[in-house]
């Protein structure tokens, strides 16, 4: 997933990674250490990659001005229309499941130019037909300022592309070894394909080497537990 995310980072852009996003942090750093050396990398609360002096307000104000080219979000539920749910499942007043809450996700899905949605587990419980509560909608009415929005959804099984025309997710590529049958079985909606669905390029030896050394050491500064467990091989 980190390698797939790295490919979405373009050199020279301003790319930000928010809270609880260790995998995007790895992907962005991998890109920065390889093809995107001139990218401005922002990783929340990282001692070397957090340029804001005034706490999170400065970060949110920066984001509201549309200064991020690429940002990352996740969802407790994610649906076929690119809607994200970070609040509750079931009756909102007496929820069956309570997620951490939207925080800035109802703004951060609008203002960065491209938002990559990531989720480290791919199951019908997460990838649902329709989210119960819409924290962050895939599509919005035309009279709302929205310079950016959903771009890709990256999971351990596949990459979805957000199609603005149909306001829905389309499978861009299946990861090596994943069949359409398996993806269908592990997704709560029927995945849409178009003529160009391919196979995700596997990580290269060189990419893995950088991930397991320089990237691992760098993310350990903000995600110490992740760094000690996720790179075991």
């Amino acid at each position, binding site marked *: 997933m980190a390698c797939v995310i790295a490919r979405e980072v373009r050199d020279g852009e301003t790319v930000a990674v928010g809270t609880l996003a260790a995998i995007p942090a790895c992907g962005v750093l991998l890109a920065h250490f390889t093809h995107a050396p001139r990218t401005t990398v922002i990783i929340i*609360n990282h001692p070397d990659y*957090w340029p*804001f*002096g*005034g*706490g*999170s*307000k400065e970060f949110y104000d920066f984001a*509201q001005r549309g200064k991020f080219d690429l940002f990352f979000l996740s969802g407790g539920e994610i649906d076929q229309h690119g809607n994200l749910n970070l*609040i509750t499942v079931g009756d*909102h007043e007496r929820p069956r499941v309570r997620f951490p809450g*939207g925080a800035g996700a*109802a*703004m*951060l*899905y*609008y*203002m960065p130019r491209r938002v990559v949605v990531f989720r480290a587990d791919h199951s019908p419980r997460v990838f649902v037909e329709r989210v119960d*509560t*819409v*924290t*962050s*909608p895939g*599509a*919005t*009415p035309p*009279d*709302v*300022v*929205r310079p950016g929005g959903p771009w890709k959804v990256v999971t351990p099984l596949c990459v979805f592309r957000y199609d603005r025309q149909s306001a829905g997710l389309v499978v861009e590529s299946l990861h090596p070894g994943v069949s359409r049958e398996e993806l269908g079985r592990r997704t709560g909606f029927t995945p849409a394909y178009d003529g160009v669905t391919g196979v995700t390029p596997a990580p290269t030896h060189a990419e893995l080497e950088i991930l397991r050394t320089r990237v691992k050491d760098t993310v350990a500064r903000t995600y*110490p*537990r992740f760094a000690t467990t996720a790179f075991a091989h």
Partner: protein
Amino acid sequence: MPVRGHVGSDYERLRPEFRVIPNPWSPSERIMLVPPIAPDVALIHAIAATADGMLLLDHMEDDALLAQASRAVVASTERIVAPEELRRGDGVILQGIHVTALVEAPGGARPTFVRGVSPVDADAIHEYVAAAVDDATFKRYLDRYVYG
């Protein structure tokens, strides 16, 4: 205050106090207004403080903002220092006018960290998370660490 985004999400339905209005400076677009959060009391732990309530705070946290939003601010601090020493410290300074009460309480932020002073106690936080799962285990946690 106005916020970008949000319009078109379920926040419009779930949070009636969030208002959607035409943008006064660009009436063809709609924008959301949210009311300010005004806590009765903010509890803040400072890296250092002067005796009259000037605080040295972590520049990566939102404590100064929180203090300015709250009706009353109770600050604790690792140590009381002279004003000239405070100004040399690494962090942001919050003037004493925002602070209602101050107490010297070294270690007062545990198990969370104080930048440049003490690290996060990850084991203690995991213990709290495990204890918070149900009322019985949480009561045992409180008996041990709060009431004990």
